[in-house]
């Protein structure tokens, strides 16, 4: 295929002229054809040059719960609106017409958004983490998290906080705390997918206090993502053993049932 044909395909894709199946096929071709991919990436980079400067490292934002709550309220408003729009408004049919109707009657699907949606629950239960007995070696990073200086925490490397003359278990524990802090910072920056990866790596078996905390925030991240399976699993785990989050996990389970 010559370059002109490639350019036309790229333009068709970007201008929304392809069917969903066509778009999937185009993505497969881009993955497999280096020349097409190079042109496509060039086009995307060109567009990026004209994008206003908006750093992807989000500015310090300490109002996560408030913003989430606002979004959650909007979700509920939209949910109610969509429900109103989707209510059956067809005129009533005669008894004879109903009796002669042999089509299978299917109960209309009720939108599940009439209950609290997952982000609403996440917003209701989210509170920034407050240290109880965190190791003093990582207190600087805890304080940076509390001050909203997330980049400092996210950029920290093991060499920055590990203790030279400490044993492996001590450093492993410090690393787990840092994973927790990084996950918490990413939650504040509204990146629940990345947050969960850090939070999940802070767990141990059998669970300790740090695991309980990391699992609790993983649960909130999963709620925010709408990952119901993970939410059920984590809430079930936390509700079965004594820990500071047990009651809240139970309530979430009840609300999701």
């Amino acid at each position, binding site marked *: 295929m010559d370059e002109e044909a490639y350019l036309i395909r790229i333009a068709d894709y970007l201008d929304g002229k392809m069917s969903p199946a066509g778009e999937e096929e185009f993505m497969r071709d881009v993955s497999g054809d280096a020349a097409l991919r190079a042109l496509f*990436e060039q086009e995307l980079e060109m567009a990026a040059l004209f994008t206003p400067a908006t750093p992807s*490292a989000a500015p310090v934002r300490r109002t996560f719960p408030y913003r989430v709550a606002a979004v959650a309220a*909007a979700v509920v408003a*939209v949910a109610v609106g969509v429900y109103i729009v989707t209510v059956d408004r067809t005129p009533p049919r005669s008894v004879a017409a109903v009796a002669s109707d042999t089509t299978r009657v299917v109960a209309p699907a009720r939108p599940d958004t009439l209950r609290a949606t997952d982000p609403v629950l996440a917003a209701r239960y989210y509170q920034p983490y407050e240290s109880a007995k965190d190791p003093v070696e990582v207190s600087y990073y805890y304080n940076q998290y509390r001050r909203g200086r997330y980049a400092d925490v996210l950029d920290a490397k093991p060499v920055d906080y590990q203790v030279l003359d400490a044993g492996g278990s001590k450093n492993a524990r410090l690393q787990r705390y840092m994973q927790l802090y990084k996950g918490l910072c990413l939650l504040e920056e509204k990146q629940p997918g990345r947050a969960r990866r850090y939070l999940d790596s802070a767990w141990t078996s059998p669970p300790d206090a740090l695991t309980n905390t990391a699992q609790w925030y993983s649960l909130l991240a999963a709620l925010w993502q*709408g990952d119901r399976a993970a939410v059920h699993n984590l809430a079930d785990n936390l509700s079965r053993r004594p820990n500071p989050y047990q009651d809240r996990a139970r309530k979430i389970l009840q609300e999701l049932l």
Partner: protein
Amino acid sequence: MLASLSRLHKASFFRRVVFAQASIPPVLLEELAENVFLQTWETFVRKLADGSLIVGSPEYTGLFFVMFKRGYLRELGKELRRVRVENEYGRSPMGAESPTDEAFSLRTRQALEKIGENCRQLLTWRYIEGLSHDAIAVRKRIDRASSIKMVSRCGRRFAELWRSIVHQF
């Protein structure tokens, strides 16, 4: 709604925008798509709530996908550029790409000032106003294929100018 949108459509939406490449690992691409998906949802809901977006029917997934696709490709383009800059100049000691982003805008403006009037107009329509090639073709009174070729040629010229400005820094 978000839960059902994720369950029913997210996988197919991702297949329509995510492609394999060498410079960004698949796990990061997926993460990028996840984040853009959530951000798009947030924007979508906010715009519906404040009345700046009106959906005429309960079927909203098509519109949502268009917003998601635009957002994802925009973020991917920025990420590709960031990776290229890192490969060429090394990682910024500041750790974030914001300093270079600022410079990109300045260089972009300077390159636009240097390029010819015809190309400036075409690039502005395509990349700043976001016009389709159909719309550009109507404005320029040419056919769509010509618009695609002309914008591509101007893009290359622009990239050369942009790089020359980088080297002056």
